[in-house]
């Protein structure tokens, strides 16, 4: 998927409420990037948080050794709820990608210098039978739009790293990923 000679450097912030799977979506991305032979860092915001508090991670993917694992201006962001939209819609670099869970975020971005993808992710996830798949729906949209990591690499990451207790949801996760990817097509 990669044009020869093009540098790979993506900084992705995934943000939502605790329990929405922002951290796990970032880990899937990190596993997939590692399997592609890329350098990758995954770093969560951490601290005295509780379920329903804010949960956020930053994933940096690069074809060279990664310096800073944190960025102020990401090249892409997934915002799963309204506070995340407010925090990261203005932060995405010009030319970057913003994936919005439009089921929970009613507002539209006013920026014309980024590619905004509205995905009714929570609704899609509910239709699939589990609202908690919204993270994977959004990840599918991002992966498709980003074009740096193939969707199949995320599927392999799901095969290998979906926690045992969620194993029965493997098929649904993959379906959620593909449904999301449809929204990421240009």
């Amino acid at each position, binding site marked *: 998927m990669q044009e020869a000679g093009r540098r790979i450097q993506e900084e992705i912030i995934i943000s939502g409420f605790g329990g929405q799977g922002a951290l796990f979506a970032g*880990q899937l991305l*990190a*596993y997939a990037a*590692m399997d592609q032979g890329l*350098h*990758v*860092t*995954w*770093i*969560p915001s*951490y*601290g*005295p948080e509780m379920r329903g508090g804010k949960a956020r991670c930053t994933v940096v993917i690069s074809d060279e*050794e*990664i*310096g*800073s*694992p*944190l*960025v*102020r*201006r990401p090249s892409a962001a997934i915002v799963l709820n309204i506070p995340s939209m407010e925090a990261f819609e203005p932060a995405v670099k010009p030319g970057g990608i913003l994936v919005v869970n439009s089921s929970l975020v009613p507002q539209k971005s006013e920026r014309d210098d980024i590619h905004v993808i509205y995905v009714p992710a929570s609704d899609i996830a509910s239709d699939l039978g589990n609202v908690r798949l919204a993270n994977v729906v959004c990840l599918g949209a991002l992966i498709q739009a980003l074009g740096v990591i193939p969707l199949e690499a995320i599927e392999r990451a799901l095969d290998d790293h979906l926690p045992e207790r969620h194993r029965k949801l493997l098929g649904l996760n993959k379906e959620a990923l593909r449904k999301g990817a449809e929204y990421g097509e240009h």
Partner: protein
Amino acid sequence: MAKELWEGNAAIAEAAIRAGVEAFFGYPITPQTEVLEHFSKRLPELGRVFLQAESEVASINMVYGAACAGARVMTSSSSPGISLMQEGLSYIACSEVPVVVINIMRGGPGLGNVQPSQGDYFQAVKMAGHGDFHPIVLAPANVQEAIDYVVLAFDLAEKYRTIAMVVADGAIGQMMEPAEMPPMRPVRPPEERPDWALTGAQGREPNIITSLYLGAENLERVNLRLQAKLKEIAANEVRWKEYSTEDADLLLVAFGTVGRVCQTVVREARKAGMKVGLLRPVTLWPFPSGRIAELAEQVRGVLTVEMNAGQMVEDVRLAVEGRCPVRFYGRMGGVIPLPDEILPELEKLDKEC
């Protein structure tokens, strides 16, 4: 072995297991509790000792005791917990038993917060406890280095019968990166304990391990021996990494998390036409003073960046000895300086010198 995605804290614990740690004593504290979590699962599985003590004071004294008995032993904590261990650390230093200590530093002073910080540089490097001693202090900047330096810490601690500290922060502790674990070393069997260890004096003269030496000349002799050892360590064990220093006329000096942030700064500054290099100390003690002095002859100015109010910069200034200007930029309280705030500091330095 293939790379796996490791969280820093878990990686530190697993690396110690691979290095043959026999016993861990500690007390949980954020942001390093995952170190204990990993040990608490793995060590009993392997028939080794995991003990959650009632406090940090108890932990370090259990570590002291086990080390005297010749066991490969360690503890781990975060800033306030390390403060509680300082009396024990001083006793261990005087007793000359090998111990590995991890400090996943957090924002201070006081109870502070749990965010990433380098506020304990002075504590680790200058005053890990009362009296004259320095632990060897290793500062990883990524998960692979955290693994490698934990293993190295055991080797150095045993080679010199000293304390080896690995200092990092919550960013390295909590982050995940692809990294490779070393192969599992066998645990040292009891009959291979060092000959100075307290193993029961059957068939031999008793060994004495103490940190109490009454009489001034007596204790001065011990101090002279400790100082001679520190000199040997300083001569043999200085470690650092350099990035783009070959043709640099400006130098960044930074360690740990902000050290790797400065790798990004070097790339961006080079794109903007500045000839910037980075020296990242790996051992904070012994400090790479000699190499910094050499580079100070080559560059127009030095910018030291830290996650504190300016601690390592004192050692940088001692090394530079006025050869060129040394400036400082730092953030405190758990804030990580990012490239977009370090670059303007470099530009200022570029104009000034």
